[in-house]
């Protein structure tokens, strides 16, 4: 489904996501300092946009917000990654050519590809629309429903969001074990459980703290934090990774962070 079609479908189902401030930053509130454009690296400034019910509105085009090279780059103070023998063996044998992302498969959670992505928020759903790698979407239900019972394992899992003040707490289960957390190849099992605490403290940033819980792969849970930056004035473009993928066959050596 195209972004336009998905957007239209959501609007038909839910009505427009009303905002008191322009969540995408295209027209900052009067008097608010102007932020940088997408390619200017400055973080746009301004107040937190809000929905009609007063909850923060995370809508907008974002860049970053999750691990790319190595998940350890986002470790919060005092946190550490402690592999089980099961996951250490997997990491030690992973080859970069087998990275699902290099083979045009989704990043899963919490990994982010180095391409823009859009959040589309309604009163009941939040959609992450990814431009790149792959051109797909993740959905978070914020309508009060419980998790699926015995969900099928999927790339983005079954995500349920609840509000804790201005923080959206997203609880996700039902992952498959196919995606990697990063170029380094940090693994996980189907028992992966993530708890994300997402805040938009101002117009230009989205702070995403993620607790990784997976007793098969890690001896203890750990927390990471990454910040996405708003790209005002940007639009998503089509990106069909499978169209002319020639890289995987040329990738050499063990998995590892970018060099």
């Amino acid at each position, binding site marked *: 489904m195209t972004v336009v079609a998905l957007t239209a479908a959501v609007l038909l189902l839910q009505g427009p996501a009303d905002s008191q401030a322009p969540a995408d930053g295209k027209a900052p509130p009067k008097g608010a300092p102007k932020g940088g454009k997408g390619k200017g690296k400055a973080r746009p400034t301004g107040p937190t946009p809000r929905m009609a019910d007063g909850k923060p509105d995370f809508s907008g085009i974002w860049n970053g917000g999750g691990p790319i090279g190595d998940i350890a780059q986002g470790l919060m103070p005092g946190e550490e990654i402690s592999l089980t023998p099961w996951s250490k063996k997997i990491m030690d044998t992973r080859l970069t050519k087998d990275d699902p992302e290099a083979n045009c498969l989704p990043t899963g959670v919490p990994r982010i590809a*180095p391409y823009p992505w859009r959040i589309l928020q309604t009163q009941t759903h939040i959609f992450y629309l990814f431009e790149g790698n792959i051109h797909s979407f993740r959905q978070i239900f914020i309508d009060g429903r419980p998790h699926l019972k015995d969900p099928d394992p999927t790339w983005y899992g079954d995500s349920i969001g609840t509000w804790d003040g201005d923080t959206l707490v997203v609880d996700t289960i039902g992952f498959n074990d196919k995606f990697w957390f990063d170029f380094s190849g940090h693994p996980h099992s189907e028992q992966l459980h993530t708890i994300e605490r997402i805040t938009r403290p101002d117009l230009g940033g989205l702070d995403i703290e993620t607790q990784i819980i997976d007793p098969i792969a890690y001896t203890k849970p750990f927390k990471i934090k990454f910040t996405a930056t708003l790209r005002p004035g940007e639009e998503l*473009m089509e990106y069909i990774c499978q*169209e002319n993928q020639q890289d995987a066959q040329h990738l050499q050596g063990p998995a*590892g962070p970018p060099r």
Partner: protein
Amino acid sequence: MSAKALILAASLGALMTVPMLAHHSFGSEYDEKKPLKFENVTVTKLEWTNPHARFYVDVKDEKGKVTNWNFELASPNVLKRNGWTKNTLKEGDKVTVLGTAAKDGTSLGHAQTVISDGKRLFAGSNTADGN
């Protein structure tokens, strides 16, 4: 390509020293110790495709043997955001390519800069902060 876009593209060339990221690990495919420079070579084909745009050039060695090299560019979206269009490079263009050779020894390279009609075009994949 407009003059503004060319200036933008040229200025982005300064980002070349930043580790480049795409949908795969750059350093796993290309060897930074193998820089390439092909001068005044002819573009034989352009593929305006994902995950990377590509162009092919015929390169003649000292013995006169011609090899067709495959050069990876950034994705079309990244190139467009950096001022390129699908017509910036086309078959028959004479270009100079600055890039990096693949680790596996095939006639594959990653183009960081393309000099076309005397203008330097930044061509690389996403930088660490995602464009």
